[in-house]
């Protein structure tokens, strides 16, 4: 535990020495990176030690503020969130050396690193806090630090807008949590977290709804995901990796903690979470498919994956309400494993996307093309991440989705239609998976394959710097490890689920996870097949001529701009989701016998934010200023009239 706390402090303070370093020197950033690495390493050590000891590690010190108490707790549930956190934070710090060097960003580099360390430490504290006040405290610090990361390039209006919307949503969510924890304190009589499955009845419903709102905002569940795409797009790539890989998960973590408190779980909770998950999953991936901004697209995929995770949680909750411990185990371990996996492969994807953006200076997918020749490492890493996020074997994404599928199938064994209908989550997952494959084939193909579509892409001449390559490869290996040796994680998953449900229920958890090694083995076989066939093909076609141009079906002078673009590739699918996306199309009409040069552009704004919320707020603000102009009309007599009326009304009220 001491190691963990030490690591937390190291990470928190990592950016401070840099503040006094030279504006253009490399000393500050190197030191900061070193501190972060040391901090994350020591925190990891602390967590592993706590896991090895078997019992959750506790730390309690008095804190002289009303209701305050420095209570930390490291149990397997928290550990599952902290371990990827440490990996990604450390990796991001190294990545930053190459991606965001101080000499290129003298203006904001130091501030960035300051809040980067702060964010990492705050998240560790969130995940380890065992007291409501401490949790809220670190929760808000995390939100603010993330805000400063999003607005790193505050001279760009886009970043400012993203930062504002993020800050507002984060604060709104936090206020809901204020209420939730205040009610919780009223239930339990103290601000210390109650033990698992110890709460019964009371204002459980309200607690759950408030928690769902507050944590859902952070996690980016579908109607509440509004801050996510713009923030991820605006932040520097390793910050986006942290945001999407880890910060979102704190919301999931909160939801899990909260639900673990209750002894009885009403069935409708599970159903609500399940439905929210399906909506986020399907519409998240559909919106992603419609994007042509690389980082925005990845952000929408975070919504999709959060949806998948929530589907697992929903199934697990249903399992608890109907007392099917197998369902609980499969759903929850699938969700938890997907939390870890998404943390890994989404960070991997953002890192490699960052290397592409760094090289081309653009986030428009349609400006890329043929980058695989210039950036082989980036391409391989992105491919690995893509295969993983599509949930395809042999990478880790498949394992977690497989567990969730099993849970969905298991629901069909339950008695009563109200539970068996949950099996419909499986087709939804299949649809999500299919769409994800489509989306990432599109991204990978349009970005790395074919011919360069723009001068910028053609001019790319360098692959990711070694300091960027290292973290990417590390994450790729981690993804492969979970995908090929999933059995190694089974014990951790079981104990985490055991801490979530009442430990008494944690019997016979081993059986459902038994086939995991076979899944891994299949992955190995697939790899061997592919390698063998590929090698044979390669040898067989080594001396084949490679200087012919692509068969243009008889057209002699095809140009790179004739290639399928991201938008055109996705169009046939997007048009199937017309009802939910409202894609805007401009131009594209061809008139007359000899049409002049026309142009066509399509853009898909966020359905919730840009279509509903912002216009609504504008109207509200207009109404407010109208009212204000009436009330504050600048005339003293009117103001005195208010005084007189108040006096009269209060007198009448009291005289009654």
């Amino acid at each position, binding site marked *: 535990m001491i190691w963990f706390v030490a690591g937390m402090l190291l990470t928190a303070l990592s950016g401070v020495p840099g503040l006094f370093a030279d504006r253009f020197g490399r000393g500050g950033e190197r030191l900061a990176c070193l501190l972060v690495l040391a901090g994350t390493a020591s925190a990891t050590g602390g967590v592993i030690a706590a896991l090895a000891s078997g019992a959750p590690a506790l730390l309690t010190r008095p804190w002289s503020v009303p209701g305050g108490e420095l209570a930390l707790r490291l149990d397997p549930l928290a550990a599952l969130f902290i371990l990827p956190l440490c990996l990604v934070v450390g990796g991001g710090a190294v990545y930053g050396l190459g991606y965001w060097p101080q000499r290129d960003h003298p203006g904001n580099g130091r501030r960035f690193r300051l809040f980067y360390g702060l964010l990492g430490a705050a998240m560790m504290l969130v995940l380890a806090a065992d007291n409501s006040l401490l949790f809220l405290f670190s929760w808000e610090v995390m939100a603010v630090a993330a805000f400063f990361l999003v607005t790193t390039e505050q001279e760009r209006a886009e970043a400012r807008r993203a930062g504002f919307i993020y800050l507002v949503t984060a604060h709104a969510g936090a206020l809901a949590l204020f209420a939730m924890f205040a009610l919780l304190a009223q239930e339990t009589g103290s601000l210390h977290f109650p033990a698992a499955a110890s709460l019964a009845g009371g204002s459980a419903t309200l607690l759950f709804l408030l928690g769902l709102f507050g944590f859902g905002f952070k996690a980016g569940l579908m109607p509440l995901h509004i801050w996510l795409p713009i923030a991820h797009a605006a932040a520097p790539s390793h910050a986006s990796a942290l945001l999407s890989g880890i910060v979102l998960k704190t919301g999931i973590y909160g939801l899990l903690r909260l639900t673990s408190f209750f002894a009885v779980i009403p069935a409708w909770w599970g159903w609500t979470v399940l439905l929210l998950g399906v909506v986020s999953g399907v519409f998240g991936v559909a919106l992603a498919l419609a994007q042509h901004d690389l980082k925005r697209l990845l952000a929408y995929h975070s919504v999709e994956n959060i949806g998948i995770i929530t589907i697992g949680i929903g199934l697990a909750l249903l399992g608890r309400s109907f007392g099917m411990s197998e369902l609980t185990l499969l759903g929850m371990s699938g969700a938890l494993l997907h939390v870890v996996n998404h943390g890994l492969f989404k960070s991997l994807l953002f890192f490699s996307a960052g290397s592409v953006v760094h090289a081309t200076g653009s986030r428009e997918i349609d400006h890329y093309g043929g980058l695989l020749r210039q950036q082989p490492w980036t391409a391989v890493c992105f491919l690995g991440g893509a295969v993983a996020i599509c949930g395809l074997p042999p990478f880790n994404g498949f394992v977690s989705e497989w567990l969730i599928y099993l849970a969905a199938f298991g629901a069909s064994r339950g008695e009563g239609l109200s539970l068996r209908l949950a099996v419909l989550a499986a087709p939804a997952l299949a649809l999500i998976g299919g769409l994800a494959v489509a989306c990432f084939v599109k991204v990978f193909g349009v970005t790395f394959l074919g011919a360069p579509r723009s001068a910028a892409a053609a001019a790319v001449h360098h692959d990711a710097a070694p300091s960027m390559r290292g973290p990417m490869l590390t994450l790729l290996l981690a993804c492969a490890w979970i995908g090929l040796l999933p059995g190694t994680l089974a014990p951790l998953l079981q104990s985490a689920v055991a801490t979530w449900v009442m430990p008494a229920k944690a019997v016979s958890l081993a059986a459902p996870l038994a086939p995991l090694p076979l899944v891994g083995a299949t992955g190995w076989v697939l790899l061997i097949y592919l390698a063998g066939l590929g090698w044979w093909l390669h040898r067989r076609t080594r001396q084949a001529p490679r200087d012919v141009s692509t068969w243009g079906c008889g057209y002699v002078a095809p140009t790179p701009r004739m290639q399928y673009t991201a938008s055109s590739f996705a169009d046939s699918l997007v048009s199937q989701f017309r009802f939910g996306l409202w894609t805007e199309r401009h131009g594209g009409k061809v008139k007359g016998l000899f049409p002049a040069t026309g142009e066509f552009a399509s853009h898909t704004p966020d359905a919730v934010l840009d279509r509903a919320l912002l216009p609504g707020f504008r109207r509200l603000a207009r109404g407010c*200023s109208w009212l*204000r*102009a009436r*009330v*504050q*009309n*600048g*005339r*003293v*007599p009117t103001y*005195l*009239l208010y005084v*007189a009326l108040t006096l009269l009304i209060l*007198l009448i009220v009291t*005289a009654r």
Partner: protein
Amino acid sequence: MTELSNLCLLLVILVNFFALGSSRLGACIHAVALQGAVLALLPLATHGLSVHTLLLAAGALALKGILIPWLLLRAIREVRIRREMEPLIGFVPTLLLGALATAGAFIFADLLPLIDAHQGGLFIPTSLATLFAGFLLLISRRKAITQVVGYLILENGIFIFGILLAEAMPLMVEAGVLLDLLVAVFVMGIVLDQINREFSTLDTEQLSALKE
């Protein structure tokens, strides 16, 4: 002595109505001066002669009856405004509202239990009525100076109530109250002067640039 004091109080109420109804600033200020003088009588009429009451009466007369009205008259002489043009609420409606307010004051006063010594006295209703009259003046007039007059009348209403407690209250507090009133009006006078310099009018309509 109640008759005498009640007489004075009735006079005060009449002055209220006059102030509400009159459009001529000068007359208004004279009326307030008269009211102040009448108020100066009240302590003596209520509590009989004593050092305390004498001092109080003297102070009231000096300030409410002479000094402040004189200040105001000087002010309007400088500004050369004579009458309150088109008030926010017309004179007749103001009078009606004043009548309503007075009636309300009497009704409200009945809700408040008095000690036997004060039974049958008009103090409470009069003070409340004067208070409301001051408020009405403040709310319904445009000219800054009229509002000062309104503020004075409001203060008079409070003073009337204060007289009830004259012997109970230590002199120092009352002195402070009167002093504060003086300073307040004095500061207001300065501000009025400044306003006049800036805008060359005392019409508060001009004073509504600060709005949303």
